[in-house]
């Protein structure tokens, strides 16, 4: 509000002092559009146009491979929604996403609170913080090969579990239908919690300490302080992080592709890998586009909540 006022006032002053610079004023009015044109070009050309194209693809019979595709209306949508593979991938994505987000939040919170503990000196705090952030350094492609090594039947995790007597024989965690989805979720939890932890740590440091003081005077113990002071203070951060994580995790492709490829027996097939395979393995670009539009729709629903939340806070 202040900006718009001061800018307008400034414009008036200029117009009054230099009436013959009409031409100049026009350029000035166009200037903002000129300056944002590169961004708009990128967003329209490489975001809006492709989305229009993908929606167009989803309304045709097979595009790309067919030289003269025909308009088929919503036939692809009814076809894909009656496909068990699509629903299987949707259910897996839901499990993977909800599991990851919830555990990210819990681990992120626990680690942030431990790091924020008053009874720790500066040096150990810095060391532990550095270790806890480590997984965040590694990209999904690296995380995938690392955990394939760790979870290999002759790998170190099986060795430890057998030594502790927790399993009787080596389990190929990523290749066993009953454990694969859990395994990829654990991997994703490992690689994603630092993002929560860092933001929550920053949030914790912003909670005024006299709030805890007051709660302690009222006789609140650790858990009541957590429920009545910490949690309410961090609620906005938790909410927006959870929505962001929900968006990112539903879109996760690399980690799945590079660990299980959606297998075994489709047990870790996600909407992202399902869509990718339709396009680049089966060359059914129209069906892939249909699936991609449905994924877009789901993401936009989450995004609406996110933007509304940001607006409310701003």
């Amino acid at each position, binding site marked *: 509000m202040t900006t718009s006022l001061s800018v307008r006032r400034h414009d008036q002053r200029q117009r009054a002092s230099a009436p013959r610079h009409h031409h100049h004023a026009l350029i000035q009015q166009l200037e903002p559009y000129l300056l944002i044109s590169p961004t708009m070009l*990128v967003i329209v050309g490489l975001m809006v146009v492709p989305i229009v194209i993908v929606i167009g693809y989803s309304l045709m019979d097979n595009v790309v491979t067919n030289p003269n595709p025909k308009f088929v209306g919503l036939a692809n949508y009814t076809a894909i929604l009656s496909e068990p593979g699509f629903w299987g991938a949707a259910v897996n994505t839901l499990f993977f996403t909800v599991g990851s987000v919830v555990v990210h939040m819990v681990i992120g919170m626990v680690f942030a609170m431990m790091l924020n503990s008053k009874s720790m000196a500066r040096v150990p705090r810095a060391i*532990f913080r550095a270790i806890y952030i480590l997984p965040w350094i590694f990209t999904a492609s690296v995380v995938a090969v690392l955990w394939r090594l760790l979870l290999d039947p002759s790998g170190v995790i099986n060795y430890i579990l057998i030594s502790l007597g927790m399993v009787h024989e080596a389990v190929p965690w990523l290749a066993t239908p009953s454990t694969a989805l859990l395994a990829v979720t654990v991997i994703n939890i490992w690689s994603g919690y630092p993002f929560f932890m860092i933001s929550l740590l920053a*949030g914790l440091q912003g909670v005024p300490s006299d709030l805890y003081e007051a709660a302690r005077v009222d006789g609140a113990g650790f858990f009541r302080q957590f429920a009545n002071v910490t949690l309410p203070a961090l609620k906005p951060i938790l909410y927006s992080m959870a929505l962001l994580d929900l968006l990112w995790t539903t879109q996760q492709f690399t980690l799945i592709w590079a660990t299980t490829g959606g297998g075994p027996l489709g047990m870790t097939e996600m909407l992202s890998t399902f869509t990718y395979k339709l396009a680049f393995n089966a060359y059914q670009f129209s069906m892939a586009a249909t699936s991609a*539009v449905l994924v*877009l729709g789901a993401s936009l629903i989450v995004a609406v909540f996110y*933007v509304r939340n*940001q607006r409310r806070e701003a």
Partner: protein
Amino acid sequence: MTTLSARAVGSTRTAGSRRAARRRMTARVGLYAGLTVGAIFAGFPVLWMLSSSFKSNAHIFAYPPKLLDSSFSFAPYVAVFSDPVEIGYFVNSYVVALSVTAVTLVVALLTAYVFSRFEFPLKRIINVVIIGVQAVPPITLLIPYFGIMVTLGLYNTYLGLILTYVVFTLPYAVIMMTAYFDSLPREVDEAAKVDGASSQAILWRILVPISIPGMVSVGLYTFMISWNEYLFALTLTQTDNRRTVPVGIQLLMGQNNYLWNQVMAMSILGSIPVLVLFLIFQRYFIGGLAAGAVKS
């Protein structure tokens, strides 16, 4: 009598404070036990990657597994560095990530300047579009991109990858830089404007020099996104002379004999740029990340 009761009071006080001290001690032990469990969960996989990158491939699954194996050597790293194809992956990653960072920063600065300092009719709508496009899933764009890049002759080129990554990094960069400019006092550029400075001069000579911390934070984020990207690098490149590190690592895995030690060495080498940037600019990273998550 008096001395006795005094002594009694004294002893209960020490007992009480001893109990408090013991409780504090238990809490401390509990805290450090928790911290250690967490550190193993977070750090052990990384330690194992480092350890495996120095083993011979025959000793990768040696029984019992050891952190410091008898086959310890730098051979896997030498193997990566003496393979021109693998070095090529690194060159490609640097070319792409540095270009994306430069383009993103310049374009984002122009746009953020407009959002922060100008009022115009479509501002609100454009702003919502820029926030909204961040939610578009990569897989949705991938299908049309393949056709678009082939049609434009950008398939398997640096330019194709660079343009693609700018689409992903630009919205966040614009939002972050706008927030940064908004935090700078307007009096600075208002005064320069009255003195007759053009708006370009205000942006580049006044705002940019005092926005270095914001630009560092945005630049780091941009570099990281481009350095780490896999899906589009996989789909939009075809030959080894355009492939990036994340794809290269997977290709090394895909060969018949898994060269685990080389894959781990390459993973370490591929993670070093982000690690180094992170260590140098930790403050910016964390500040930017937290601010982005909360305020963007």
